[in-house]
């Protein structure tokens, strides 16, 4: 089972974990991405996330499907936020449930690493003296 969401609303971490819990799964791995207060020593005030919505949802589905094909995992949840987020807020939650922990760890790591490479979502960092699209330039 797969649950994909791209939303402007705050992510509900306990609800995400509850969704992947199931009697046949003995291991749940959760990755929570949070907004850090600095980049290379520069204080970050806030982030803005923009998505190419329909393609991002398709790519997120694709990653979840790949994870389920590569590892014996029963449930995959992938939620991402868009809009303005303050320091400490949560832009991404990934939760994976499997019978045994190794598959859950591996699949969860694969999902966040692949998301960062392929899903059309962009993050802009706001500093006191300017703003920058992350990763845009070499």
């Amino acid at each position, binding site marked *: 089972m797969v649950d994909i969401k791209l939303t402007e609303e705050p992510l509900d971490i306990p609800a995400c974990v509850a969704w992947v819990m199931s009697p046949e799964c003995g291991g749940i791995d959760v990755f929570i991405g949070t907004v850090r207060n600095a980049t290379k020593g520069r204080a970050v005030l806030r982030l803005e996330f*923009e998505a*190419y919505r329909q393609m991002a949802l398709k790519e997120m589905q694709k990653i979840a499907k790949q994870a389920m094909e590569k590892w014996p995992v029963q449930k995959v949840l992938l939620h991402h936020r868009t809009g303005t987020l303050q320091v400490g807020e949560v832009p991404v939650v990934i939760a994976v449930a499997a019978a045994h922990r190794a598959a859950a760890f591996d699949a969860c790591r694969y999902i966040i690493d692949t998301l*960062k490479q392929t899903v*059309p*979502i962009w993050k802009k960092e706001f500093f006191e003296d300017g703003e920058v699209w992350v990763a*845009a330039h070499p």
Partner: protein
Amino acid sequence: MNINVLAFGIAKDIFGASAIEVELPEAGTVTDLRSKLEEKYPRLKQLASYMIAVNDAYAADGDALQQQDEVAIIPPVSGG
């Protein structure tokens, strides 16, 4: 043919708009589109890289475009 090109992230800043129209010869390819865009918006060449998406999927350079395609510029992604 005229192709409507959507822009996201820094590409939106470079174009100064969230969508632009680009004229390409019939059966023009993704490579043709790149050349045309880079000619008009040289700042695209300063990006670490950028992909072209056609109808919500990453396209290869040789893929042919059609007027009704939904085309988008995908600058380096940075979600998560």
